[in-house]
Structures are given as C-alpha cells and as structure tokens.
C-alpha cells in the first residue's frame, strides 16, 4: 500500500501507471451493467452534493436518482454496491472534516483580512487580532482583538488542568492499583457514567451556587471568575481523565508489576517506578484529552462568566472572569453579523486548530508507547 510518490518523477509515473492498470483491471472484471449502476450512483450523489452546496431546490432530484441507482445495485450487484457504498461513507467522513475546515476558515477570512497590518511594508493578515487588546465590535474604533478571550481560555485551561491532571491521575492509580476489586467494580462504571453529566448542568450549579458564594467570599464586584470556571471545568474533565488514565495503567502487564513486587518493593514504589513510567504515554494522552475538553468547554464558561470581553487587571487576577473563546461565540453569535460574526469564526478556527493539534499529539504519543511496550508483552 505504501505507494508514496518518490521525490523523482519516475516514481510518480510508476505509481500513476499502477493505479491506471488497477482501475483498468477493475473495469474489465466488472459486469457492464454493474459498472453503469455504480457510475450513475456516484455521479448523481456528486450532483446532489453540488446542488446542496449551491443551495439549489433541485437537490432532491439527483439524490432520488442516487437512491434508485443504489437500490437497483443492491438488488442486482450487492457485492460491488456494498463496497462502493462503504467507500462513499468513508469519503463522506473525511469530507465532513474537510468541510468544517473550509467553511470556518472561509467565514473567518474577512476579519483576518480586516485585521491586516503592514510590517515593514509586508502585509500580515490577522496580526491586529493578536496585538490589540480591546474587543470593541460596535463603538469605534472598531477592533476585533481576540487577546482577552485567549487570555481567558488560557487561564481557565491552566486552572482546569491543575485540578484535573493530578487528582485524575491519582484517582486512576487508586482505581487501577489500590482499590479492592469490589470497590473498583462499582466505582469504575460510576465514574464513566458521571463523565456524561452535561456541561450545562455543571454550568447551572456553578452559576447558582458557586458564583454567588465566590463573589461574597472574595468581596468581588459582580459575579464570574476564571478561578471557579476553571475549577468547574476541571471537575468536568476529571471523570474522562480518570477513565482513560485507568485504562492505560491497566494495560501495563501484570508480570512487570509482580516482577517489581517480588524484589521486595512496596506497592507505592512499584506504582511510581514501574507502572506509571510504563503507562506514561497513555496517562499523558489522558491528560491531553482533558486539556482538550477544557479548552473546548463552552456552556459552563458562557453561563458563569460576565460575557464582557476584556483583560483582567492585573493579568493574573483570576477572581474576575470576562470571556473565553468559546463563551464569546456562544454569547455573541445572536446579534453579530458581518465582520463581527466573522471574528467569532476566527475564534472557532483557533479552538479547532489547537484541539486538533492536541489530538494528533496524543495519538502520536500513544502510538509511540505501543511501539515501545510492544516488546514487553
């Protein structure tokens, strides 16, 4: 399968020739009417997609043709149709990711362009989004700075990670290595179920209970603090971190743990010197997953924060909370249009790209761990 094109043209040409040969074989081997059916289905589906993109009311027509063609194919040439259908679904899945990328980038572009700055004569699009510090979409001078929201997201994420990572990993250690079997059998599914508590419920409790309490306790003007949003988001990510980290710890072979214990080490020494290092990648993937959750968490932040973009003073003052990237979108999409709406999409792009990198990073770490531990199992 590794027909990666070599850097030279010869390899490319060879690959192309091979591909051509394969498709010619396919055409030769397949009965003509099956080929026609599949082609009709593919073309009509493409047409339907194009119609949908172009907001045409005729979209239904090619879609109906597609349904008829696949229906016919299913009855007469099930083998081939199934294969083509599953291929189509795979392509659609990738297409969804592609469409998300294209659309949010396209919608974000006007603001990026608006925020162009010339540095030594070279125009750098979007730079003003990051060097100004004021979000002011209505009153002139109109500025769409994302700095306050990035600041908020960073603070919330740091606090949430500080809560979720150590507590989550310690709890995972407890569940996987220490807890008696009966406790684990009850608590593990319980934790997994609690991972499902909707974020709006956390937000609601934070809004009605925590925020007033904090405002009173710390003598803050008004409600909404990054500190407590961070703690709530951290608690929300906690079950996910526990559950994933527990799986990673559990996958460390028992023989390795027994080997350490048989040398006369304590359980705690075995955990810290053998089990945790061996499961390090899986555990850090769990933490990264938690961080991703914290960055992307919307509702708790939207409900609990003030919704008035700005930097806290001083910058490390976590007792005030203005807006995060997510809450900015959720709170402003309604009355935003034009450039302001486009600025919300820029926030979306930042979120999307950051979390995508985290996801790819954790997959890379996990793959490396599997390779490394591969010899031990």
């Amino acid at each position: 399968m590794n027909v990666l094109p070599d850097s030279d043209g010869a390899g490319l040409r060879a690959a192309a020739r091979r591909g051509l040969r394969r498709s010619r074989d396919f055409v030769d081997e397949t009965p003509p009417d099956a080929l026609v059916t599949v082609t009709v289905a593919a073309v009509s589906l493409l047409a339907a997609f194009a119609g949908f993109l172009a907001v045409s009311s005729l979209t239904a027509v090619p879609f109906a043709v597609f349904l008829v063609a696949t229906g016919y194919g299913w009855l007469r040439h099930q083998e081939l149709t199934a294969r083509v259908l599953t291929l189509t679904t795979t392509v659609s899945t990738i297409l969804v990711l592609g469409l998300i990328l294209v659309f949010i980038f396209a919608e974000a572009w006007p603001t990026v362009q608006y925020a162009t700055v010339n540095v030594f004569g070279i125009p750098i699009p979007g730079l003003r989004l990051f060097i100004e510090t004021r979000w002011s979409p209505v009153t002139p001078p109109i500025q769409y700075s994302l700095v306050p929201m990035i600041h908020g997201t960073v603070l919330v994420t740091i606090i949430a990670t500080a809560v979720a990572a150590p507590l989550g990993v310690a709890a995972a250690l407890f569940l996987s290595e220490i807890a008696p079997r009966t406790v684990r059998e009850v608590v593990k599914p319980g934790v997994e179920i609690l991972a499902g508590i909707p974020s709006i419920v956390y937000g609601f409790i934070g809004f009605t209970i925590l925020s007033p309490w904090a405002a009173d306790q710390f003598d803050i003007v008004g409600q909404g603090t990054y500190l407590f949003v961070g703690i709530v988001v951290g608690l929300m990510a906690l079950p996910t971190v526990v559950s994933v980290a527990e799986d990673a710890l559990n996958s460390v072979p028992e023989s390795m743990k027994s080997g350490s214990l048989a040398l006369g080490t304590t359980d705690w020494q075995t955990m810290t010197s053998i089990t945790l290092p061996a499961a390090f990648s899986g555990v850090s993937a769990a933490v990264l997953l938690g961080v991703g959750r914290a960055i992307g968490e919307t509702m708790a932040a939207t409900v609990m924060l003030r919704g008035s973009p700005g930097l806290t003073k001083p910058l490390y003052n976590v007792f005030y909370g203005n807006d995060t990237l997510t809450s900015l979108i959720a709170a402003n999409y309604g009355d935003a249009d034009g450039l302001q709406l486009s600025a919300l999409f820029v926030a979306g792009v930042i979120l999307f790209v950051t979390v995508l990198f985290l996801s790819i990073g954790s997959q890379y770490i996990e793959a490396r761990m599997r390779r490394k531990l591969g010899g031990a199992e």
Partner: protein
Amino acid sequence: MASATDTALVSEDTSETEAVAAGAVGLAAVLFALSLASVFELVTITDPVAGVPMVALLGGLLVVLGFAVVTFGVGSRLGYVATDPRPTAGLVASTAFGLVWFVVGGLVASQSLGFGTAGWVIGALVTGGAAFAVSAFPREDIGSTLPAGGLALFAGIVFLTGVIGPSWVWNLGWEQQASFNAEFTIPVLTAFCSLLVGWAAAKAYGGFGARGRHVGAYVLVYLNAISIIALLFLLVAFTVLKGLPGLFNGFAFGAGAGPEVTLVGLTFSLPVSWPFVMNGVALLNDVNGVLPAIAGTIWLVIGAVLFAVPLGVGAAVFITEYADRGRFTQVVEIATNGLWSTPSIVFGLFGLAFLVPRLGNQKSLLAGMLTLGFMLLPLVVITSRESMLAVPDEYRDASAALGVTKWQTIRSIVLPASLPGIVTGIILGVGRIAGETAPILLTMSGSVAPPGSQTVDVLGGFQFQSAPPFVTNPELMQATSALPYQLYSLITAGVGQSSNIGAIDEFRWATALILLVVVLGFYAVGIATRYYFRSKLQHD
C-alpha cells in the same frame, strides 16, 4: 551495604509510638473535616465548638498536631523511637517543602512586616532555602517531620494569637478588587496544614523509609479518591434533591387522572398525570412543563442517529474490511480522532455557516439534527472499528474458506459479532449529544419557554408537492427547543421572558434534573451493556 538496614521480618505488636502516630493521623483527618465544614459554612469560624470558638479550636489542634509530629521526628532521630529512615527525605519532598515555606516567608515579609520587593524576595528565599535544607540534608525522620510540623505550629500560633483572627481581611490591592477574609483563609490554611501534617504522621506511622513513604502516599491517594467520589456523588444528589419537587409538581396517578389522548381513533385518558413532562409553558397552566423540549430532544437524537449511524458503520466497514492498512486508513483514523475531539461549539459554527443557509436560511430542527449527527459520526466510526477489529481473523478466514464472498462474510459474520460494541458506542454517543447545548444553540434554538402547542410533530409534518423539492416538512424546518437549550435559556433569560413561569427556580432545577436523568440514563444503559458483553466475552 545491604545489612545496614536489616529489619525484622515480623514487626512487633502495635507499639505505643505507633499508636501516637496513628492518633496524629486521625486527628489530622478530624481537623481536615472540621476545616471543610467551615469552608462550606456549616460552622462559622466564630461559632463555639465544645465551648471554644472555632478559630481557637483549629489553632489549638494545629499546635498540638505540629508539636506531636515534630516530637516524633526528633524522638526517632535521637533513637527513642524505633524507625527505619532513609538518609534523606528525598528531592520531591524537599522541593515541595521549600516552595511552601518560600510562599510563607514571602507573605510574612511583604504583608506582615511590610518589606518592599527586595525584602520579600530575600525573606522568601531565606525561609524557602532553609526549609529545603532542613528536609534535604538531615535524616528522613527529621527531614519530613520538621518542616511539616513547623508549619502547623506556626499556623496554629498565628490563629491563636489573633494575627489572623475572625475579623482579619487581606485586600489584595489589585486594580479589580478582591480580598481574602478570615472566613475563607483560616479553614483553607488549616486544611492544607492538616494534609501536610497528616502525611508526615502517616510516614512516621510506617516508620519512614520505603514503608513510611508507602503509607504516607496511600493516605493522600485514598483521601483524593474518596473526595472525588463524594464530590461527584454530592453533585448528582444535590441536583436530584433540588429538582424533585418541581419535577413531580402536580403528579397524579390513577385511572382517568391524565389528559385525554387519541390513538388510532380511540380516545381515552392516560392513567398518569405528570404535568412537568406533559405540558408546555402557558399563562393559564397550573403547572408548567417542558414537553416541547423533551420532544425536541427525542427528535434531535433520532435524526442524528439516522444520519450518523449508517455513515459511521459504513466507513468503519470500509476501513476495517476493504481498505489495506496504510496511508489511507491512517488518514481516516486521524480525521475521525480529530473530529471526535473538536469542540462542540466549532460544530455549532460549522452548522451555522454550512447548514443554516442551505436549509431555509433559518435555524431549524433539521440543521440541529445534522450538526449533532456530525458530532456523533466520529464516535460511531471509532467504536465500530474497534469492535470490528476485535472480531478474530479466524472467523473471516473460515468464512472465506467456504467460498463465501467478502460482503457476505461481513454481513453474516463480522457485523453480528461486532454488534454489541457498535450498539454500546452509539448509546454512549447519543448520551453525549443529548446533553450538548453549544451546537444547537447556534443551529436550532427556538423560544425560551415554548408553549405546549409548539411541540414538534415531525411525522405529521410531511407535505408533498409537485414542484421541487417535492417533499417538505415545515416541522423540520422550524426552530424548536431541546432540554439542554431550555436549561440554558432559562438561566440566561431575563425576568420578562420567563414571567409566565411562576416558580422559576424550581422549574430550572427540575429541567436540570430531567436532563441529567435522560443523559445519564443513556450512559448507564450503554456502560451496562458494555460491561455485560465484556464479561460474557471473558467467560466464553
């Protein structure tokens, strides 16, 4: 070398010194509980407990604890207590103590003594360095007890002498003002000190050394696990308690109690009347309810499942069964994992940009369904692929050896065998999307408190016409409500919009509870089936 630390195979019966250490651990636990109680304002710090004001009690206990731990450490160093300490408390403990005392020194120098920047930096460095040295250089018994016990002694004396008394307030002096008051500071400091001292006492109980570290760490790990479980449990229990009254307001049970319904031409009364889930919001209702939101959630889930499951399972079949492992499958895997971790608000933005303009240019149920379908898709692909990979290759080979075509093998061997995994994945995914607010906020949100007449009826909404697009369904093309969105709008709505609802607070909590029940219900069913099939696999 090895004989330097020979210990007995069988330890003596619990000695008196061990009992002292165990007592210290227990006292630290009591102190921790007391301070938690006052953080959550179950007891205020000026309330008398056993005749003593709370502050004095906390301070006094801290002094006792700190003294006990220091005595134990010194006693062990002088050989009065039989322990098995290492030459040093270790780098981690020393650094932690150094940092704690760095902060203490800095705060005392800047706040209490009023030194300037240079002064507090020097003060912090000196105390921090001293604490590091005390824990790193002497033997472990001194190194791990002295800094911890010393901190507890110090804090206890500060509380007892009233340097931090009940009326103490520390204004941070920031531009946006915030301050610490005694009500918060004293219990939190006490809790922190009791953790440190509790850990040191647990180490002493284990006789320091490897066993002591083991015991000390276990105390903290157990405490952490218990707190997390208790906290999450409290969260759910609290919501249930607050929500129950509103949920069962006007609940009646008995023949003919419920509203009349017409099914297949027959009209009869339901035996249950449950206004909260059977009514919408209206001015004349005795009890207002969330029926439109429940119906909206159900239709959302159905739509998302109808969209995502065929696509997701199909894609999983292709990459697992047809495609060769290589670049292509890798790209699909990265794409699905990337999609899975994409923040839900980004899906909402995508729906807003891609679906809304193409579906009648307004927020609609269909746009919400598709957006949630996009969210569900990667989870269906991932879990289906996992459970298909778990089907042993022998099954496929055996089937292929019988001359059965590939698709027949997939249909009659692979899919049935992986069905439990796929179903579990779908249920869990449905639980997640049923609780999502952000995407539907941007793509289908309707009015804040919809009346019962706005309950969406998709099946009855289909209309056929001769011009393209031939089939329309206004119900699908309209904005509607869903439970999470309903809760959100209830929280953020101003008084005017929710004036129809009398007891707004009760109504909110009931909505939160029913949302929790619906979502956790999906999760519970999904996880129960997963464990059921897993244990079945293990026993076979």
